[in-house]
């Protein structure tokens, strides 16, 4: 009964009844974009609060408690504070690039959500190259980090920017390869088809047929979003916050929020491709709306990523590279070969 | 070696180059002239019965009444487990002594500190820069007993405050 698909269809029909064709297109695009962006902003606020509470739990503390019940308004307070901060631009920085770097970062992290299915019928656009588009778009973060590192005119930022570029580019390869297994199983790049291929019970989810692919994906994804143990670009203890040292105020907030939204993106992709997307684990549980299942699975993976951060020490840069190229990459190839072979045998 | 054995061995090895001082609570102490320091240190490091491989401490000391300024070396041997105290005293104008950082690298920083605080020049020091004070320091040698620094007020003897 809470299926949002019905609500969106109703609104769409209502608008179509009095708007002409080109205007309808524009209005519906704006409306969908507005809904997605609004949802993601609220989600980012929630994730920041959740990270603080989780980290407090792991560290035998209680975290924010005073701003609102159990500190739920803490992130809003932080956002308001950052809005009021002075926007400092270093004198010798490259002003144009300095300005555009956080913008590029923030915008590209939303672009991936064009193709992510939030529930049954709740996808902005079901591109038939869905997953390929997402992998391509998420690489744009590299450009923004390099821009930030370069424009700050600061040796530490430059080091941070270069490290992060090397890291993200290296981990793109095993990431994309680990997804190929599920694409082969679903025989399509479209996200909706992949989810529909996992219908039925939880035994149909691709994780059982692609365990290695799942592990590879989670590892590579942690590196993609610069989370510990792969968070060298932000290693405070070594580089004093790396590529975003010189950023203050709202620009810093953009980098910060983009990191959390990116983290949700990779978890959403994993939930869609390996954990069945918006399918419930058992058929009789389908009275719970599909978007609840999707959110639950994604947030569970977010929890795992946050758990990693507060447990492990950090990998050194050359260990990180060696891990990607000498360990993850051969395993990803092995995964593809074995998957292809088994598909051929059983079908 | 025990303290007595060490004392007699040092006196035997170096004869008139060293002058015995009262023991520093059980540690044999000797006074050495600045020009003999290098060969004495060479023997102390290489002699198989002495084998002083570790410099515990190196500090300056200033006696304006007898017009002497000097350096105290506290040596220790891990191989033989004995201590030795050496003292080199020099006249207060233009004090110069050879650097022992070629024997014990630890002396490097100790000597830099002593040089800037007492004004003693260490010849052949590999890195004679000030260690603790700023490079532009020009207000004298603070650890000397007669230093008139603007922030330093010598407290009166206990029981004689006005």
């Amino acid at each position, binding site marked *: 009964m809470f299926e949002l698909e019905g609500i969106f269809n109703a609104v769409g029909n209502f608008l179509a009844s009095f708007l002409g064709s080109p205007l309808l297109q524009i209005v519906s695009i704006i409306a969908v974009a507005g809904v997605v962006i609004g949802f993601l902003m609220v989600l980012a606020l929630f994730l920041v609060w959740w990270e603080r509470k989780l980290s407090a739990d792991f560290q035998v503390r209680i975290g924010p408690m005073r701003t609102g019940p159990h500190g739920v308004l803490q992130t809003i307070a932080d956002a308001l504070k950052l809005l009021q901060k002075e926007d400092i631009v270093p004198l010798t920085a490259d002003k144009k690039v300095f300005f555009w770097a956080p913008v590029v970062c923030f915008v590209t992290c939303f672009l991936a959500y064009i193709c992510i299915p939030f529930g049954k019928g709740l996808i902005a656009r079901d591109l038939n190259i869905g997953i390929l588009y997402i992998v391509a778009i998420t690489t744009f973060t590299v450009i923004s980090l390099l821009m930030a590192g370069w424009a700050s005119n600061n040796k530490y930022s430059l080091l941070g920017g270069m490290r992060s570029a090397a890291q993200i580019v290296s981990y793109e390869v095993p990431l994309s390869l680990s997804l190929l297994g599920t694409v082969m199983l679903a025989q399509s790049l479209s996200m909706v088809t992949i989810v529909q291929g996992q219908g039925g019970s939880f035994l149909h989810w691709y994780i059982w047929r692609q365990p290695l692919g799942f592990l590879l994906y989670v590892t590579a994804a942690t590196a993609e979003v610069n989370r*510990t143990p792969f968070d060298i670009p932000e290693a*405070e203890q*070594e580089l004093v916050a790396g590529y975003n040292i010189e950023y203050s105020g709202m620009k810093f907030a953009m980098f910060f929020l983009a990191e959390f939204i990116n983290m949700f993106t990779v978890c959403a992709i994993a939930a869609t491709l390996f954990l069945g997307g918006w399918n419930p684990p058992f058929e009789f549980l389908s009275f719970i709306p599909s978007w609840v299942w999707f959110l639950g699975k994604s947030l569970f993976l977010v929890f795992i990523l946050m758990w990693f951060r507060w447990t492990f*020490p950090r*990998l050194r840069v050359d260990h990180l590279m060696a891990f990607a190229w000498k360990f993850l990459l051969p395993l990803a190839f092995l995964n593809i070969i074995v998957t292809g072979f088994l598909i051929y045998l059983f079908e | 070696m025990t303290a007595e054995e060490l004392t007699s061995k040092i006196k035997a090895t170096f004869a008139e180059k060293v002058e015995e001082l009262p023991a520093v609570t059980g540690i044999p102490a000797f006074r050495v002239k600045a020009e003999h320091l290098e060969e004495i240190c060479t023997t102390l490091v290489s002699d198989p019965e002495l084998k002083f491989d570790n410099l515990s401490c190196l500090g300056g*000391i200033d006696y304006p009444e007898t017009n002497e300024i000097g350096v105290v070396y506290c040596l220790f041997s891990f191989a033989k487990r004995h201590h030795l105290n050496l003292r080199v005293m020099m006249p207060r104008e233009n004090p110069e002594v050879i650097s022992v950082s070629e024997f014990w*690298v630890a002396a490097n920083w100790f000597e830099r500190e002593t040089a800037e605080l007492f004004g003693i020049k260490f010849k052949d020091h590999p890195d004679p820069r000030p260690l603790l004070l700023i490079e532009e320091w020009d207000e004298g040698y603070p*650890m000397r007993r007669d230093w008139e620094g603007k922030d330093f007020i010598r*407290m009166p003897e206990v*029981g004689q405050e006005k």
Partner: protein
Amino acid sequence: MVVNSSDRVEPAPGGRELETQEFVVNMGPQHPSTHGVCRLILTMDGEVLKKVVPDIGFLHRSIEKIAENRTYHQFMVYTDRIDYVSSMNANHAWCVAVEKLAGIEVPERAEYLRVIMAELNRIASHLVFLASFSIDLGAVTPFLYAFRERERIVDLFEMTCGQRLTYNYMRIGGVSRDVPKDFVSETKKFCSYLYPRVDEYEAILTENPIFLGRTKGIGILDLPTAINYSVSGPPLRGSGLKWDIRKDEPYSAYDVFDFDIPTGENGDTWDRYKVRIEEMRQSARIIEQALEGLPEGEIKAKVPARFRPPKGEVFARIEAPRGEMAYFIVSDGSTKPYRVKIRTASFCNLQALPVMAKDLKIADLVAIFGSLDIILPEVDR
């Protein structure tokens, strides 16, 4: 200070070589992982360190000069501030030196109390090491666990002397006040609480592959270099030498207790970390033995307020948590010392940093710096 980067590489005649240049980075006085205000001037070629030059003196408070202006009793407060993380041990060093100079006999109960306090402070100091070492490497959580344990030790100290950081508990001739009634039982409870906690820390860090990759084989200090640089304490023991002043030149009541000296094999960062973890367990052992055998009696020998030690000199050293802390005191028979030379462990350990960090990366430098457990007030005095 002015530092020059090295000369440019000239391109080969007739061709354009890819020129690389070493650049100089300042790991400035304010930095999250130099524990205190220490400036490191790094000459780097890409990620690899070519030269590390420490620039110290930001925390120089001329304690040695102040010592010439204070009586022996008054100076006790300054010793706390030389090493504020393990200030019971710093107090202890001053007391041992002055008592050796004047030949003062300390009552047995005072000696046992001193040992208990010094060992508790050793555990607290090693917990601070564990916390800052793991946070330097990126694992944030052990920091809070270690400080949770340290809170309990600091509560014990507060019960005894009222202070949480700079205790000023010991006096020349003994200790300043007796322990309250429930101190013995609370400390026993703490010791039995500590052993499983140390096992927990080991479970998180010691065999973790990421931790091993960051610390094994990094920053090797071989034994002859260590002895030549006058490195002392856990770095020296990590390089393989079984030397502990508490066992080899015992002072206070240490010759009565039974404990082991952990040593490492390779002299790398992992060995220094493991030595300190083991030392925490051994300290707990010493404390338990001392609590069992705590005798009754006086807590302070009679030392006059205008204390005039005989004319002479003393060189006395103790095993502080960071290494060897020694005092060279020259007395001229008056109430104030003529000259006090403080030899601290971190001063010599920091000198060995450039030789350990040669040709490693900046991340390794942070790990090595953390494993040496340097405290800047000790270096600068």
